[in-house]
């Protein structure tokens, strides 16, 4: 089992390395010359060349890659090409904001979805199940920007309860932060919970058709215990996988939600970076997103391995 876990981690590292190559090459072949953008149309060829030499842009690509990768390891993410600030400092605050958003959403939505999914599986074809199924299916099929816009329309424009723009700053008190980010939080909770509820329900019901569940019925075990003790343990693998994918989405895929609420998160920073051709910034953000995915997937794989008694206790 240890070998399997180590193998997973090793594969994760390889994946990250491949991703770093792809990100670097991908951003390098993007059209547009950084030096030109930074210095403007009026720059002379000499100033352009001087800028390139200063920033290592005249080096061969693999050398640039090596320097960049080395920087990644030492935490030196480079200097923003479009403003001169260090990328670490640019990202720092945004990263904290994103983690705050993702963390709060995860803390609320994961237990909520698992409990609701279990409820739906415990009472299939009852009103609880029907309401949950209808609700989750509707929410899965509606795009997140629609939910976000709709929320703005109701809570900010019509009712005026919450601000339309999630303008958080480090100086805010906790309460202010929560109030300011309430709408993106609710939107994201709705979006990710719907899928997790569906998958929890489906995972449990799938296990419920097994002969060992019929056996526990014939042993006189109550339905609640059958689901929480017999079925849940066997459904952990797939459930954890969906949770991991949804959490990864919270870090990287929330561009639209962040944009609509003007929330100062990482994904929005990356979009800004693309618009200003700030390649080091884009690269750093891309690596953070991929890293999050890889780490979360490794965690879910390890959780699945640990929840499987065959792998945990070999013959």
């Amino acid at each position, binding site marked *: 089992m240890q070998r399997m876990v180590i193998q997973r981690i090793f594969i994760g590292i390889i994946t990250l390395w491949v991703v770093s190559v792809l990100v670097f090459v991908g951003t390098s072949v993007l059209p547009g010359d950084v030096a030109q953008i930074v210095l403007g149309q009026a720059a002379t060829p000499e100033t352009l060349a001087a800028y390139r030499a200063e920033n290592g842009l005249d080096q061969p690509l693999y050398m640039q890659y090596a320097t960049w990768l080395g920087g990644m390891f030492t935490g030196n993410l480079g200097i923003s090409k479009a403003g001169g600030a260090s990328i670490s400092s640019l990202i720092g605050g945004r990263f904290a904001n994103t983690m705050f958003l993702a963390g709060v959403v995860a803390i609320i939505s994961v237990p909520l979805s698992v409990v609701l999914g279990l409820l739906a599986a415990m009472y299939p074809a009852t009103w609880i199940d029907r309401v949950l199924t209808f609700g989750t299916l509707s929410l899965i099929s509606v795009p997140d920007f629609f939910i976000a816009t709709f929320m703005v329309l109701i809570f900010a424009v019509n009712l005026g309860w919450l601000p339309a723009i999630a303008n958080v700053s480090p100086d805010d008190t906790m309460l202010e932060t929560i109030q300011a980010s309430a709408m993106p939080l609710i939107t994201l909770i709705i979006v990710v919970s719907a899928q997790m509820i569906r998958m929890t329900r489906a995972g449990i019901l799938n296990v419920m058709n097994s002969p*060992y569940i019929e056996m526990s019925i014939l*042993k*006189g*075990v*109550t339905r609640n215990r059958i689901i929480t003790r017999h079925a849940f*343990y066997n459904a952990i693998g797939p459930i954890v996988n969906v949770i991991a994918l949804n959490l990864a989405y919270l870090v990287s895929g929330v561009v639209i939600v962040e944009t609509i609420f003007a929330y100062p998160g990482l994904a929005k920073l990356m979009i800004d970076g693309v618009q200003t051709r700030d390649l080091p910034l884009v690269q750093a953000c891309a690596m953070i997103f991929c890293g999050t995915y890889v780490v979360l997937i490794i965690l879910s794989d390890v959780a699945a391995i640990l929840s499987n*008694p065959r792998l945990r*206790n070999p013959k």
Partner: protein
Amino acid sequence: MSELLEVRDLRIEAPKKDEPAVKIVKGVSFDVKAGEVVALIGESGSGKTTISLGSLAYTKPGLEFSGGTIKLKGDDVLTMEPQGVRNLRGNRVAYLAQSAAATFNPALTINEQVTESAVLHGVMTQDEADVRATELYHALELPDPERIGFRYPHQVSGGQLQRLMAAMALVGRPDLLVLDEPTTALDVTTQIEVLKAFKKVIKEEGSAAIYVTHDLAVVAQVADHIVVLYSGEVQEQGPVDQIINNPQHPYTKRLMAAAHAGPKPGMGDKLSGDHDKDVANMQVKNMTAGYGEIVDGKPAITVLRDINMSVKNGHVVGVIGESGCGKSTLARVIAGLLPPAQGEVILDGNILKGSYKSRAKRDLQKVQFVYQMADTALNPKQLISEILGRPVEMFQNLRGKAKREKVAELLRLVELPVEFENRYATELSGGQKQRINLARSLAAMPEIMLCDEVTSALDSIVASNVVNLLKRLRDLTGVSFMFITHDLSTVAAFADEIVVLYAGRIVEQGPVDEVLSPPFHPYTRLLISSVPEMRIGWLEETMQKREMAVGIARGVEITDIGCPFYNRCPIAIAGTCERTSAPTYELKPDHFISCHHTAEEIEAIEKAPQQVLHGFEKAAPDDDVIVKPL
């Protein structure tokens, strides 16, 4: 006296929308007295499982009780409140299913599952239940009874799991046990071991039992009273002695006829001139195969060692041995699903490539595989016409009308109505599905069909029909068969030659009548002695036999050196058998045996059956168990 369980005019049906309900059980009545074992026998579809589940107030989804009463000590279980039903299940009536492997929850320890119902029903505290479970593990002769409960289901063998399920049922001291085909899925040797344990523990506990099975030989060993069912109705019931020895009803007589008489020489057809073509069609030469990476011609885990065998044109070769002996692996190597590490497979004089991926389409066509479980081998989303049409299209290059005609011809060949082409596999019965499964292989017009336990999941009447069909197919098409099974009686009736595999080595092979008559290889003898006979008292008699004492207590272990059967062999020669591989010699023409004893020695031992050369002292039940610390 009042009966423990009284079933009166029980009716169960499957309600349908807009149609009259399908009647599954049509007014069945019988009684179970305290301490008595009542067997419900009949083929699949007779309603025997449905009736037995009725005593737990349970029906499979889609069925419902529509009349009658089932009284347990005077309480009608069909009108109980949900609380009463929960208290009934697992506490007053306990259920043992056919497949323990599927019935144990893979995620929980054995002990938790064994003690769960007694603790939940408040009969015992967890500690009391643990003590009781350990007592039962001792009584059921399970290895390492003090610690086996801490393991997970995948860490014990199939036969052990089956006995652990008995412990699960017995832990709360139920009034009634319901055993649903508890030994059907097991090897003959394992079946004996489990039967013996069941019988002992039922006697010691004094519990009454309903024993559901289609195997009359098993019934003769365990039952006191027999109820014969057909299509949801009782045909005949009476004491075991009367039903077995003097059946009255024509259906009971038919069941008796379909039940095997035990494997004996002379049961098969004499080879007709037609199908006795003396050409080796398929040969396996010096083949070694296994799983894992192959280094220097040795796989990481060697399963098959130095296999030499051949299948002549139009012949049927039966491959027998317990599970874990490498029977399916052998078929997989021949089919190219598992490339061998050494040696080769020769078909029509040409060496076949190791992997199916590099074999020519022509070679793929010649070798066809038929799987045990037609349920899983046939795509449930495809019509029969598609399932049969694809191989016809691929291998015979027929399209349109010609293809449809070919599919119809295949259906006629396996004796199914042509209209079946518009059905889905899920709409067919088990025997019909197996026929489609065979037709699918025949669609490729193969030279050899590798049949892996194709009759094992079928009950005896359906299975003997399928075997008859196979015989006709052999005569009609001239196809050869490699017929893998653990059912010796079928092999005796169907095969021309037998290959006996033990722990990946061929221990005996030859013409079927030769292999089934003495002198036997000790392993062949163990297999033959383990087939239950339809005779009351057979089980007790057999357990007295020398080959049983050591043979049954242990399981198959693949060894690198020596004869792998050494630790189960009653006539093993200490110091020789475990050190050197047994020599293979020709007993009679084409009859080979691998043993350190000469034919004369074996024959001498056969004649003095109680003379024990060696072995009993090794039979200590505990030393064969490898227990790893948790």
